[in-house]
């Protein structure tokens, strides 16, 4: 990935292998479109209330911003507009961007080191959006708590095609492990759509 501008993980016609709960689901990309950086995708996590010095917003739900319809996956990057630390959980109980003992954050310094937000990249499948845990590290109240997202939306096709009626779409194939997925002969890009428990 590197410190590069965002690029779509796959083109239409290519395959994605979604990794969720240590299982591997193979889908084909049917359609792709961009989600450019824009004001509808700026979350104001305090809902106008601001955030007190040292304060915390636990479990901010990104559902209204990042939720997708059935059989769609988003490739997103994020940056903050205020001096806050943002931890990401996906699903709610699993910390993303974590090591054995620590959880990395998105914060104002992230963009200084990584101007393309490359290290913030994450994927969100259907309504399995991330939940944010936001803290104000400063000694003063913040009047706004803004986190912005941008990226791509992919419409996926399973073995019976796309979700034309809005229903669930079964993957082309589900594998128990990555070895089986590789041995299937299919070409794919691997995408984590939920944290891998530490």
């Amino acid at each position: 990935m590197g410190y590069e501008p965002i690029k779509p993980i796959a083109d239409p016609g290519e395959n994605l292998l979604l990794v969720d709960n240590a299982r591997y689901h193979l889908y084909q990309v049917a359609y792709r479109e961009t989600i450019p950086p824009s004001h509808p995708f700026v979350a104001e996590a305090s809902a106008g209330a601001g955030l007190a010095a040292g304060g915390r917003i636990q479990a901010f739900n990104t559902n209204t911003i990042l939720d997708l319809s059935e059989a769609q996956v988003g490739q997103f990057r994020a940056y903050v507009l205020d001096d806050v630390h943002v931890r990401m959980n996906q699903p709610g109980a699993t910390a993303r961007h974590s090591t054995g003992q620590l959880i990395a954050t998105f914060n104002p310094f992230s963009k200084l080191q990584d101007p393309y937000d490359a290290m913030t990249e994450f994927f969100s499948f259907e309504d399995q959006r991330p939940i944010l845990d936001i803290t104000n590290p400063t000694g003063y109240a913040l009047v706004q708590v803004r986190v912005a997202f941008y990226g791509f939306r992919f419409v996926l096709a399973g073995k019976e095609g796309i979700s034309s009626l809005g229903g669930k779409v079964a993957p082309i194939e589900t594998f128990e492990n990555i070895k089986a997925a590789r041995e299937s002969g299919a070409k794919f890009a691997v995408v984590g759509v939920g944290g891998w428990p530490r």
Partner: protein
Amino acid sequence: MSRTFKNYKKGVFKTSPMVSITVAVAPGVQNLWILTAGRTAILRKLTVRNRQAAPVDLLIGEGGVQRMVLLQALNGVDATWTERDLQDWEFTGTITIQSTAAAVAPNEIQCQATVEEFQGPTG
């Protein structure tokens, strides 16, 4: 903290609240910028308006301890020192400002700063 590896650091710029120097606050030390816990900061810009009848010397310090050469704020003019003028002292504590004026009424000397904060282990 005196030596700053300027070329290797990147910080976020913050603007302080407006500070009015008054000797009524003994001993006249005003907090110009209170650091975010765990961070350090370098003073990048200082704007001062001295509305008194005479110039004053300003003492920039860390918790009241002088860290920079005195700056003279002429009266009746706008004074701004920018990154080119200010030393890159890396503050690890509250940045303070004092005036040498013997008596100052509120808002006679107004100051405002921009600092560059650097990330620390907690901030």
